[in-house]
């Protein structure tokens, strides 16, 4: 049963963007991730699913070293972005995070204007020479985030005044303004209502033409809807990783099957 025969839906064999090999994470003495190896392709949406506490967020945060801020967290194994080890001593995590952007569970726009929210990243990284360039970036990012039409008349009103779904799209615009190569999203829709969720999912689907997107979600339906590849985590292990259609129609591992079909996992 090959679900992928229709041309439009085929996942081309993309280059591997992030290659994680045998990643182990400990929080103090607790072993949160156990030998996870995942190759995340470029220009695809990869979903991480699994029961609460299985280590999805932990793994996601390894990918842009947001875990560095947790003192007790220790990461072993190799994670390579375009072949370069991101845990190398020479890597400045600040620079890494500009390349591997992140969008969070709750929309968290800065309490500044919409414009300032988007231009913040380019400004601190010195990506522009002048105001005109900055304006251009802001506009193009808001367009990519499917927000431009809704906010173009009030770029200088506060970002916190937008609705939840708009805020989340603003956060996505802000993240892509630093021209990252990978976009990590940790449960980006769990604070949104169904309509806003659908809009953000639609946006994610469009973003994959330019970015490699990794999304953590509790909603299997969401993973099914937005992703091309799905990884199922369980108790810190990567149980199954494969094409989304296959995971949801004929998973190989009984644990995956149990989880996605709503049996006790």
């Amino acid at each position: 049963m090959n679900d992928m025969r229709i041309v439009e839906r085929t996942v081309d064999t993309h280059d591997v963007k992030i290659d994680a090999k045998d990643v182990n994470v400990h929080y103090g003495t607790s072993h949160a991730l156990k030998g996870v190896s995942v190759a995340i392709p470029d220009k695809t949406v990869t979903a991480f699913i699994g029961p609460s506490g299985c280590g999805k967020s932990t793994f996601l945060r390894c990918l842009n070293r947001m875990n560095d801020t947790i003192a007790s967290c220790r990461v072993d194994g190799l994670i390579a972005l375009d072949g370069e080890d991101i845990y190398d001593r020479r890597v400045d995590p600040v620079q890494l995070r500009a390349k591997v952007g992140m969008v969070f569970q709750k929309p968290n726009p800065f309490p500044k204007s919409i414009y300032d929210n988007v231009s913040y990243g380019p400004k601190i990284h010195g990506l522009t020479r002048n105001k005109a360039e900055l304006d251009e970036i802001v506009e193009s990012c808001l367009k990519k985030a499917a927000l431009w039409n809704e906010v173009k008349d009030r770029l200088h009103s506060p970002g916190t005044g937008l609705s939840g779904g708009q805020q989340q799209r603003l956060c996505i615009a802000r993240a892509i303004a630093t021209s990252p190569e990978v976009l990590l999203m940790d449960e980006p829709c769990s604070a949104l209502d169904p309509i806003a969720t659908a809009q953000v999912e639609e946006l994610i689907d469009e973003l994959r033409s330019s970015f490699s997107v990794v999304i953590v979600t509790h909603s299997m339906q969401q993973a099914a809807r937005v992703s091309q590849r799905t990884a199922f985590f369980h108790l810190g292990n990567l149980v199954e990783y494969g094409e989304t259609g296959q995971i949801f129609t004929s998973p190989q591992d009984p644990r995956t099957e149990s989880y996605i079909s709503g049996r006790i996992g």
Partner: protein
Amino acid sequence: MTNDNPHIASAFDRDLEAVQALIMKMGGLVETALLDAAEALVTRDEEMAIRVRNGDNAVDALEEQVNAECARLIALRAPNATDLRTVLTVMKIASSLERCGDYAKNLGKRAMVLTQMAPIGATAGSVRRMAKAVQLLLKDALDAYIARDVALAADVRLRDREVDQMYNALFREFLTHMLEDPRNITACMHLHFIAKNIERVGDHATGIAEQVIYLVTGKHPEDARPKADVTSGPAE
């Protein structure tokens, strides 16, 4: 069905079981109709033939109910993986059984006509034997489904060959009767169609067996279905 790994939502399991119970009910009705039609043919019992013909309404209604239930299950429970295959399989089987019901009904109708005509040799007995064999096939296919028994399903697929051979024998027998006596032609035409219909029920039983294999393994059986019906053209 096996329930050693129940859903957290127990109502889901109950719904799945309910819809499968409908399938078994359908299967039972169809098997009886098949045997009854053959019996009516042998005993030239017009009453029984009429009963068979009218009994199909129940099967049709059941199929519609299964479809509605399945639609409902999909809408309300968004099943996936095994559950989804179960639901889709149920719909396929129901549609197969509905077709089988139609064939039985057609048998009944033709039996009604044949009771008005002179009997043709011992053909009715052969038809009943074939019907019996096919009914067994159908029963085993449904049993295989309920028990999720791949071995039994594979066995059903193999035994369809025998039914095909029985059909070939009958085909030749009817042809002989027609050539012998042109007055037999009309009756034999009906018998031809009766045998063909029974053979088709056998094919549907095989189809159900294949659904069982797909359901359990997630794959359709690889080898082409062994077909021994040579009447429609050159054997491949």
